[in-house]
C-alpha cells in the first residue's frame, strides 16, 4: 500500500515507545552496570571493565551449553515449522469443523510454562506416565531421568506439543488469506498438489512464516521453565541450556557480575541470529 510521508506519525508511536523504553532500557542499563563492576556489598563496588565478559566467554561449561542450545533450537525449528505447515494444510477451512479444530489446536498454547513442565514430568515418567509406559511397552528403553537421549526426546516432544499450535495458527491464517482465483488458475493449468504448494501457498506464507520462525527461534533459545521443571538440567548436564546455566549462576551462586555479562552476550547472540534470519527471509522476497 502507498504510505504517506509524515513524521507527525511519531506522536502515535510515542505511547508504545515510552512504555517499552521504561520496561526495557532501565533494566538493561542496570544489567550493563552489574556487568562492568565487582560488587561486594551495598556501596562497595569496583569498576573492572570487561573482566566478567572475558571470564564468561572462556568458561567451558557455558560454551557447552551454548552448543547444546543451538542444537536444541535448530531441532525445534526443523520439527515444528514443517509440521505446523503440514497440519495447517490439512485443517478444514470453513464450517463448524474448522472452528472446532482451531479451538482444539490452540489449547496447548494456553497452558502456563510451569504447568507444561508439571504435565510432562508425570506424563513421561516410565512408571506412572502414559507416554513413558507406552514407549517402554514397545520395547525401547526410555527414562528421562537417567538417559540423555530420553531427556532430549522428552523436551523436544514437549516443546513440539506446546508450540507447534502457534505455527499452525499462523500458517492457517496465511493460507486462508490466499484469494480463490489463485487456486482456480492452478486448476485450469492442471497443476499438481505439490506445484500448488510450492508456487502458490509457500510464497504467500512467507510473511507469517517469518514471524513464526523468529518467535519460535527466540522462545526456544530462551527456554527455561520447562527443562528446569522436567529434567532440572540433567541427567548430568545434558539438558543444561543457556538459561538454566544462567539462572544457576545468578541465583544459585549469586554471581551477579558474571551473570550480567553472560546475559548481555546471550541477548546479543539472540539479536544477531534473529537479524540474520530476518535478513535472509527478507532477501528472497523478490522470488515469485
Amino acid at each position: 500500500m502507498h504510505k504517506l510521508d509524515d513524521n507527525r506519525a511519531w506522536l502515535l508511536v510515542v505511547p508504545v515507545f515510552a512504555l517499552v523504553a521504561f520496561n526495557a532500557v532501565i533494566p538493561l542499563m542496570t544489567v550493563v552496570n552489574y556487568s562492568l563492576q565487582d560488587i561486594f556489598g551495598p556501596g562497595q563496588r569496583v569498576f573492572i571493565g570487561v573482566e566478567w565478559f572475558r571470564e564468561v566467554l572462556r568458561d567451558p561449561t557455558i560454551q557447552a551449553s551454548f552448543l547444546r542450545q543451538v542444537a536444541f533450537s535448530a531441532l525445534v525449528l526443523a520439527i515444528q515449522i514443517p509440521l505446523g505447515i503440514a497440519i495447517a494444510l490439512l485443517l478444514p477451512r470453513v464450517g463448524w469443523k474448522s472452528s472446532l479444530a482451531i479451538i482444539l489446536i490452540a489449547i496447548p498454547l494456553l497452558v502456563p510454562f510451569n504447568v507444561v513442565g508439571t504435565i510432562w514430568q508425570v506424563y513421561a515418567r516410565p512408571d506412572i506416565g502414559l507416554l513413558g509406559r507406552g514407549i517402554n511397552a514397545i520395547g525401547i528403553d526410555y527414562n528421562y531421568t537417567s538417559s540423555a537421549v530420553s531427556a532430549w526426546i522428552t523436551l523436544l516432544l514437549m516443546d513440539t506439543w506446546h508450540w507447534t499450535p502457534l505455527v499452525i495458527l499462523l500458517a492457517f491464517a496465511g493460507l486462508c488469506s490466499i484469494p480463490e482465483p489463485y487456486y482456480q488458475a492452478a486448476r485450469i493449468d492442471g497443476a499438481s498438489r505439490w506445484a500448488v504448494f510450492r508456487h502458490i501457498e509457500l510464497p504467500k506464507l512467507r510473511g507469517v512464516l517469518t514471524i513464526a520462525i523468529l518467535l519460535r527461534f527466540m522462545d526456544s533459545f530462551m527456554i527455561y521453565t520447562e527443562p528446569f521443571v522436567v529434567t532440572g538440567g540433567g541427567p548430568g548436564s545434558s539438558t543444561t541450556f543457556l538459561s538454566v546455566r544462567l539462572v544457576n549462576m545468578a541465583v544459585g551462586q549469586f554471581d551477579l557480575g558474571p551473570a550480567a555479562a553472560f546475559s548481555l552476550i546471550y541477548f546479543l547472540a539472540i539479536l544477531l541470529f534473529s537479524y540474520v534470519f530476518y535478513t535472509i527471509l527478507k532477501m528472497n522476497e523478490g522470488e515469485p
Partner: protein
Amino acid sequence: MTVIETRLATDAPARAAFPTRRLVAACVLGAYLIFQALPVYWIVRMSLMTPGNVMGRSDFLPVEPTFDNYRTIFTDPTWYMSFLNQLAYVCLNTAISLAVALPAAYAFSRYRFLGDKHVFFWLFSNRMAPPAVFLLPFFQLYSAVGLFDTPWAVALAHTLFVVPLAVWILEGFMSGIPREIDETALIDGYSLPRFFVTIFMPLIASGIGVTAFFCFMFSWIELLLARTLTSVDARPLVATMTRTASSSGMDWGLLAAAGVLTILPGVAVIWFVRNYIAKGFALGRV
C-alpha cells in the same frame, strides 16, 4: 483436507482419485490431535485422583475419581484469590497493550516516518532479553516506583513482550483496509481520533479480537516475571502453584487441578475469537 481438494472432489472425473487422499489426511490430522490431547487428558485424570493414587497407579482411567482437589481450591482463599489476581493482571495487560498498540499500528500501517523500520525491529528485539538476570532489575524498578506486589506491576512488565506482537498483528489487519476510507472520512469532517474510534475500529474488530487473544495468552502463561513482581497481595495462580510444590512436598492431585483451572480462561477467550483467527492477518509487515 484442503479447500482445493474438497472442491475438486465434486468434479465427476476427479471423484475416484480422492477418497484415499482424504482418508490419509484425516488420519494424519486425527493422529496429531490425539498427540495434542493425551497430555491434557493426563492432567485432567491426575486432577481427579488422590496424591497417593497419582504416584502409585498408571491406569488409563482415573482411579477412585474425586473432586476433592477442586473443592480445596475453591474453598481456600489463597488459591481462589490467586486465580483472580492472575485474571486481573492479564486483563489489565490486554487492555494496556491494545490501548498503546492501536495508534502505533495505525502509524506503521499508514505512514512512513523517520526511523520507522528501526523502531519496529527495536520493539521486537525486546522479546529477546533472557529474563533470568533481568528479574532483579525489574524487581528494583517496580519497587522504586511503588508498584511492587500490585497487578499493575505485572501488567506493565508483560507489555514488554506482548506489545511488539500486538503491533505487528494489528498492523497486518489495518493494512488490509484501503486508505481511501480514511481519506473519505477526513474529507467528511471527521477528526482523526473520532474517525479511528467510530469507523476504523469496528472495521478491524476481528483483528482486535485476535490481538486480544494473543496478548491474553502470552501474559497468562508467563511465570518468571509474575512471580518476581508479586509477593502476597497480588500473587498469581502460577506462583501459588510453584510455592505449593516447594514447601510441603508435591501434592500432585492439587497441582493438576490448579493446572486444569489455568487452561479454562484461555479456552473461553479462544471460543470468542475462533472464527477470526483465520481472517487476513497474513497481510502484515515483515
